[in-house]
């Protein structure tokens, strides 16, 4: 089930949060409703941790992680690092890395098995990604963009990529990632998928400008709907009808 929400007046929820299958990070300083929307969905399952990175709120774009680990940029302060180590489950390895390209969330897109990275990432960083996140790393571009972390978002069940990705690229990436991929948009036509959306294997959060059509594409490609037919119809209905007059 996908939920629409806003951080202050911004629909870029993927900038202010990071969702994985084992934990969720949320930026400090949004209204309490932002944090409580995440809590409502996730609190029974795993911790929802409020944090900043390098004193900023754009945490979703600065860090990269999955159920195995979390990679933080060199701008992360010692207190933030300690806070995250204390708050996240023990099996999640939290590691701060020295990489010139410090917006790790923009440079790395990953699920629990595979990662796509910026073509200019250091060799050492690539090794760290493979070690800490336990993934196979591929240097790629998406529709000609090197910021793969910004223009695609994928979980273990499916993925959404930049709308201008060609069919050939889509097939190639799909084979690499071993999940079905769809080219689409979020937040009413925004191409920056990962900024507008944050997703894991059973739930997604996207900006409130996201149209009903975009939402149904997201729910379908990430397989967020229940399998039973009646539940399917109910879910479809919820996402197709915006408001009752």
């Amino acid at each position, binding site marked *: 089930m996908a939920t629409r929400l806003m951080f202050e*007046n*911004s629909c870029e929820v993927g900038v202010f949060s990071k969702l994985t299958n084992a934990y969720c990070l949320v930026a400090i300083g949004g209204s309490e409703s932002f944090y409580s929307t995440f809590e409502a969905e996730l609190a029974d399952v795993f911790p929802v941790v409020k944090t900043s990175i390098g004193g900023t709120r754009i945490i979703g774009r600065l860090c990269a992680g999955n159920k195995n680990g979390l990679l933080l940029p060199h701008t992360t302060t010692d207190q933030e690092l300690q806070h995250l180590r204390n708050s996240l489950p023990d099996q999640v390895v939290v590691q701060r890395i020295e990489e010139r390209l410090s917006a790790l969330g923009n440079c790395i897109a990953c699920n629990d098995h595979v990662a796509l990275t910026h073509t200019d990432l250091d060799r050492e960083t690539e090794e760290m990604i493979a070690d800490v996140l336990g993934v196979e790393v591929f240097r790629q571009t998406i529709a000609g963009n090197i910021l793969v972390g910004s223009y695609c978002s994928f979980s273990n069940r499916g993925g959404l990529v930049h709308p201008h990705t060609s069919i050939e690229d889509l097939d190639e990436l799909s084979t690499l990632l071993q999940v079905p991929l769809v080219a689409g948009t979020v937040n009413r*036509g925004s191409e920056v998928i990962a900024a507008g959306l944050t997703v894991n294997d059973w739930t997604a959060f996207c900006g409130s400008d996201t149209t009903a059509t975009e939402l149904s594409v997201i729910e379908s490609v990430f397989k967020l709907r229940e399998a039973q037919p009646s539940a399917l119809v109910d879910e479809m209905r919820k996402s197709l009808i915006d408001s009752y007059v």
Partner: protein
Amino acid sequence: MESSLKQKLFVCLLKGVVQADFVFFDPKPDDFHGVKILLQTYLDDTQWDLSGFVDLILAQTTVGTVVKIEGDDDDTPFAIVTALNLGRYKDHKCIKELKEFLLKVCQEKDVIRDLRLLMGEQAHDVGLLVSQRVVNLPPQLLPPLHDALFDEVSWATEDEPTAELRNSFRFKCYLLVSKIYKHKNANQKNNRNLIRRSGSDGGDGIVYIKPEDENFHKLSLWSFSFPMHTQQVETQEANYCLMGFVMAVETAKISTFRQQLQSLVVES
């Protein structure tokens, strides 16, 4: 009706000269994202139906102008200007929230009565003048931009298909929501001797982010300022703080304003 008023402009940078042709367009649905970014801090950091507000602005194609650069692949709006009749749109969620916000932030007792009247009983005669732009938009564009707006308003009073719509543009008064920098000691009379103010604020402790706001302010019926939570980029003057600024300007004063605007730009 697409008016293409071109303003050739040479902007001198340290390394060379950039030529930019600015073009004025009617609002289109595609401008949604760009206009939304321009209006991001319109009501401070309040969570309100900004998307609905932008949709309203873009749906009104007869009055309203979006400024873009010719041949720009990105098609980004650099400025938006429009006038929305508060009575015509009073049932829209965004307008209701806007009215609530203004009544909440107005701290001045004498003004709040007038504000309530303007947005309530008199709403069908009031136009909300929305004008937002990128910080570095060349001031030479301001006179044609404002001329375009006020001309479109007067054309609409003749050209709109129904009498109701024609009347909805016969504004008696404009309401403006803007931002200024106010000197922190501006209200403290005893500190007059201790304040070292730069000449740029014109002596009243206010720096107008949009130059035409000074003209509007002088011609306004009333105005008030309110503190804002969002802080803009670091300014050199640490003694100034960003404040929201609301003014009401009678339509009768607009022709004076337009004349003043012409000379304002010639001087600078």
